[in-house]
């Protein structure tokens, strides 16, 4: 027996997990913990505002917006599948659709906030409902915004024909983040518009 190394089959089946998804899942874990704290604060303060307006008086359920955001998860999935199969036109089309749906969601949130602030007089400083509502929905909207920046970056690279099927694994790491943003919206939507209203 010369050395320990001599009996190990070289280049065999040693395949630790890829670092991209592991890193992204770790980030998602940390982000989830942040959202949990904001959700707990929201739930804890439901019905504790000392003054109006109450959620039932001012909130309208953003169903179309929600449908847009959730369906963007499907389109981004189709986009990355097209990229893996080297169907570049389909990739660009679905990626753009995702971007458009995400942007629609963010604009929808903007319109909702404009309505609340200027017509209903609800700001972050009005009462506890305003405090928790704007911070929770705003935290999510911020994540959508970061996602849109990422989507736009990939879109620009794709338009310049710099995205290749070999890079689909890297694109998929970003896709994980986008799915996370959608899943969090389910929790936020349920808390704010169903439980809290």
């Amino acid at each position, binding site marked *: *027996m*010369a*050395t*320990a*190394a001599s*009996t*190990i089959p070289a280049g*065999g089946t*040693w395949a*630790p*997990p*890829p*670092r991209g998804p*592991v*890193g992204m899942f*770790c*980030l998602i*874990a*940390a*982000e*989830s*913990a*942040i959202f*949990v*704290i*904001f959700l707990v*604060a929201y739930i*804890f*303060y439901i019905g*504790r*505002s*000392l003054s109006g307006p109450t959620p039932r008086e001012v909130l309208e359920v953003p169903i179309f917006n929600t449908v847009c955001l959730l369906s963007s998860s499907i389109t981004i999935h189709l986009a990355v599948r097209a990229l893996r199969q080297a169907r570049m036109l389909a990739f660009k089309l679905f990626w753009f659709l995702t971007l458009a749906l995400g942007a629609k969601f963010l604009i929808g949130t903007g319109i909702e906030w404009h309505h609340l602030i200027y017509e209903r007089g609800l700001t*972050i*400083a009005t*009462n*506890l409902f*305003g*405090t*928790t509502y*704007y*911070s929770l929905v705003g*935290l999510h909207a911020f994540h959508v915004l970061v996602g849109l920046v990422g989507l736009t970056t990939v879109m620009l690279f794709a338009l310049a024909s710099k995205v290749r099927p070999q890079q689909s694994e890297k694109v998929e790491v970003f896709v994980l983040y986008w799915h996370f943003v959608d899943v969090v919206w389910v929790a936020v939507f349920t808390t704010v518009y169903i439980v809290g209203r």
Partner: protein
Amino acid sequence: MSSNSLPMPDAIASAPHLTGSARVLDTLHDWVITVDHKKLGLMYIGMGLFFFLLGGIEAIIIRIQLLFPLYHFVSPQVFNRMFTMHGTTMIFFTAMPILFGFGVYLIPLMIGTRDMAFPRLNAWGFWIALFGGLLLYFSFVGGDGLYGAGNAPDVSWWAYAPLTSRAFSPGHSTDYWTIGVLLSGFGSIASAVNFAATILCLRCPGMTLGKMPLLAWMYLVMAGLVLMAISPLTAAQIMLLLDRYLGAHFFDTQAGGSATIWMHFFWIFGHPEVYILILPSFGFISEMVPVFSRKPIFGYPIMVAATVGIGFISLSVWAHHMFTIGMESYENAFFVLSSMAIAVPTGIKIFNWLGTMWGGKIRYELPMLFCVGFLFQFLIAGLTGIMLAVAPFNWQLHNSYFVIGHFHYVIVGGILFAIFGAFYYWYPKMTGRMLKQKLGLLHFLLFFIGFHLTFDFMHIVGVLGMPRRIYTYEPGRGWEYWNIVISVGAAFQALGIACFAINLVWSYFQGTRAGRDPWDGWTLEWATTSPPPVYNFAQIPEVKSARPLWDFKHPEDPDWKYL
């Protein structure tokens, strides 16, 4: 091994021959732009030592102020700033950077790879943490917004609401605290992502999870805890900023907000934080004790299970910091029981280290001295922890010096002793030179004596009723002698630290050459040169057991035969 024929990046760095200030600038530039885990690790450690000095000076000021009853060494305002800055500095900008630094430096070496999984994220994490620390200390200058004298935050390291609201903390000192800690938290989360990805994805061939060095396991669980525990602090700091800048009401009791929820959010971070600090220390001990006992670690799988167990349980014990706020009895019962339950895996670890030493050929080198100090002191820290976990006992001694004594036993007697041990153990690897033996022994003795003088008697003065965070006290309560002893102990500790600091600098120039493997170690970092080359290993190693260097040195009796 054809390492000489490979084109390696360090050949580029040594090529131009510069002189004078150009060379200094070049070296500085090299350190600023680096993404090398070894340089970043050293910078993390350097940052930690710098803030350790500042936090130590603040501690000395606190101890001089409390030396005599009705003493006025500093004003009450300055006293408040000192204990706030001492706590914040020591946790966020001393302990975390030093432990992260050792991890960033050692983990790629120990798992046999060339760098962290995300080298640039690694650099980002370091610089953002350093920026956070500098921002915190800038408050001494800019805390009042530049007109009017600066002032440091004075809301204590846990910054309880509503003291932190605009009404009670005008000026910007609290904002410096919030943003400084928030930024260091971002850095910690980035580093945790990096640790987890590195440990899971970059292990060298053959190193299954069950064959990793225990230090890598401890850092993996620590990274998970950072993700789960620092994030709530981040969320709470964002809420506090919203309160202070946009007029939100999260912690505003006037508008129906709750001061208690800040306590919950803070301690959901705060208690796992203790384990974020102690798990890497456990990792150091688990590497050093076997090497200096000449035995493999006793009960490797049990150690891993205990670590994971601690990780999980530590997320459900936070409210034992809050027994006096008046919780429901079932809540009290839950947190009493969970806090006691965490003593079980911790106890398992202590027995495993003792089991490793039992029957071994123990070499009392300097790292081992600190390990033994750790075992003894950490046991006592754990025992007073169990005492404080009992709610009725806690009601009696909450916010007393007993609590101060307890957690300094954990953080100084446990974590800091492990860190000192790690310095003596890995300094030869990092610099290529051994630390001076006699000066190290003096450091150990002075610090050991100082530690016990200070923190043993804090328990007594706490039982006698001295509350924490008081500016001064009346004579005649039986606290005078104890406070003098405690402060004298602080002076001993300062002398010990001075020996340590001199040793670090002196040995760098004058220490005896260490060679690759001064301790006859078993993990992969000892397989490369000291200090390691930029690429760590000319050839990525392959391992077959948890002690690859033992296998290499003893081909007639390798560990993997018995797996």
